């Protein structure tokens, strides 16, 4: 897959670069204004180095494009997702191993990221973020003259 292909850039996932609070009706807001304390879980993530930068994958089962919020401010990357229960409220739980609510995670990226070329894709409940390395953060070979 060509990671720089703009066709995988998903315009419906809100990726905010720089400061800014989640917009009205976004997952972050819903969490703050919800009358019931929603359960927040920490999604497991993988980060690996690709040829052009970092690739981050997060397991967000149940999340949809419209309820996902990704923000990169300075070097802090935060992910928020609000998940709707697929089961009607009237159903009686008889066995529970996971809670349905919100996902939240934030962490510090050590590398400089080219903010203009970040791409996000959500497929089958897995978020894949491609964070291309900024040119000046790329390693450069220094010639030593004898």
């Amino acid at each position, binding site marked *: 897959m060509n990671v720089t292909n703009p066709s995988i850039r998903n315009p419906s996932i809100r990726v905010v670069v720089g400061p800014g609070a989640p917009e009205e009706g976004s997952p972050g807001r819903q969490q703050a204004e919800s009358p019931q304390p929603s359960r927040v879980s*920490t999604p*497991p*993530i*993988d*980060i*690996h*180095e*690709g040829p052009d930068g*970092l690739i981050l*994958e997060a*397991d*967000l*089962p*149940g*999340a*949809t494009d419209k309820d996902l919020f990704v923000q990169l401010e300075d070097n802090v990357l935060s992910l928020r997702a609000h998940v709707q229960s*697929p*089961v*009607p409220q*009237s*159903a*009686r*739980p*008889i*066995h*529970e*191993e*996971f809670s*349905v609510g919100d996902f939240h995670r934030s962490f510090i990226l*050590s590398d400089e990221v080219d903010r203009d070329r970040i791409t996000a894709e959500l*497929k*089958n*409940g*897995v978020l894949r973020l491609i964070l291309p390395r900024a040119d000046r953060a790329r390693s450069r070979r220094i010639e030593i003259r004898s």
Partner: protein
Amino acid sequence: MSGVPWQNRWDPLRELQREVGRLFDGLDGLPALRHLRPYPPINVHDEGEGYVLTAQLPGVCADEVELTITGETLTMRGERKRPEGVKDDSYRRQERLVGRWSRTITLPDRVDSTQVTASFSNGILIVRIPKAEGAKPRHITVATGG
């Protein structure tokens, strides 16, 4: 051969990053506990007419899950493959589980195993299992004595 392995790139910062990552893994990820938890996590709800089983299976496609029902015992199995072309040493963080998994769950009441339906929605497997005729709740009209 003894001595310092000069052929390897000396990269003390990378080593430090790896150690810090390991330290944090021990604190917030608690991978030891994570492995004790059953995978995939399952919820079961009683909807009256039947049971709804939901399982968190992010990144899994419908054809990668094998679902069988024998009497009241439901078994699901599958495999989450590691991504192709990603070298182990390119990972900075790896928390998402890979490998073969299977789960078996026994439902608390008699079900109609011929009417079971299953679907995938954003990384959540939803299995609807109707109860057998005799196990469904039945409304009894109380006649007024005359």
